[in-house]
């Protein structure tokens, strides 16, 4: 099972991760990041296939996937 963390200080809430994840692990949430916008939440991380597309496509490097 992969351990996915989203850095609250880095995330700007652009929601790119929501659309690039093939397993739709990221979902919208009401939690705010330090930038002031809504940040995504992680749901069902056990479905992660560790393709690391979210890591590469997060423009602010907020996502870290650890196997």
């Amino acid at each position, binding site marked *: 099972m992969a351990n996915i963390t989203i850095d609250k200080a880095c995330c700007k809430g652009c929601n790119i991760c929501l659309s690039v994840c093939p397993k739709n692990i990221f979902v919208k949430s009401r939690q705010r990041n330090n*930038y002031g916008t809504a940040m995504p939440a992680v749901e069902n991380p056990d479905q992660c296939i560790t393709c690391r597309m979210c890591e590469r*496509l997060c423009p602010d*490097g907020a996502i870290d996937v650890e196997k």
Partner: protein
Amino acid sequence: MNKLYEKYIKKESLPTLFCPGCGNGIIQIAAMEAMEKLNCKDDVACVSGIGCSSWIPCYYKLDVIHTMHGRAIAFAEGLKLSRPDKKIMVFTGDGDCMAIGGNHLLHAAQRNIDLTVVMVNNYIYGMTGGQKSPTTPVGAKTKTSPYGCIDEPMNACKLVMSLGASYVARWTTAHPIQLAKAIAEGLDHKGFSFIEVLSQCPVQAGKNVWGEKEPAKIMEKYKESTYLYKIGSDDPTGAVAEKNAEGKIPIGLFKHEQNAKEYLERVEEKLAQSGIAR
């Protein structure tokens, strides 16, 4: 936080000044991945001009010169001549590289000097508020073309190929793995490497060019409006065209000439012929 940030990014200067969803961050990570792949962090120096894209290297733990508008390639040539042992990476935007710095691009490509130029093409002048740039598509309504742009956009890859650049590729921010590979190949290549990256500007180009402000949807558009060009494929509209018959933009590796003579090699050869000792 991304694992590469620990090694490559000055964390005290975070968060970056890019808008939410800007493609520059993706290119930043791709370039870090390329340096990690070649394990050449200590050999790389970066030069950038003015524009949003020119802020990319300013967050790196590397030697960086942030220079005048359009003169990034001119400064990089000087740096290369004085420090031939360094790999020089130039980050520049479409306005910076082709409008005000167009002349420097032409001559650097013609000399085939060993630089890696990453041109971030977001189709607009993003930093100054959305003016028309040399790559703005026909019909786009911007601040300086309120009735729709009438100029044909410039094709940077075709331009530098015709002048003799020896590594030319075009990718988009929706292809991060291929982009990182292209930057690594460009850094490794001896000669002028030109990598055009089609990037999304959700704030300015989103409003004026795409009519779509969601960065993920602009990236989706890039995936739909491009096709993979392969060297040697007999598609006559390939790399040389801005668009093919279906209106799709070619992406991929356009030219990789390994035997082309590099500028510094030619200088050394000429000096040796003239009997001048170094």
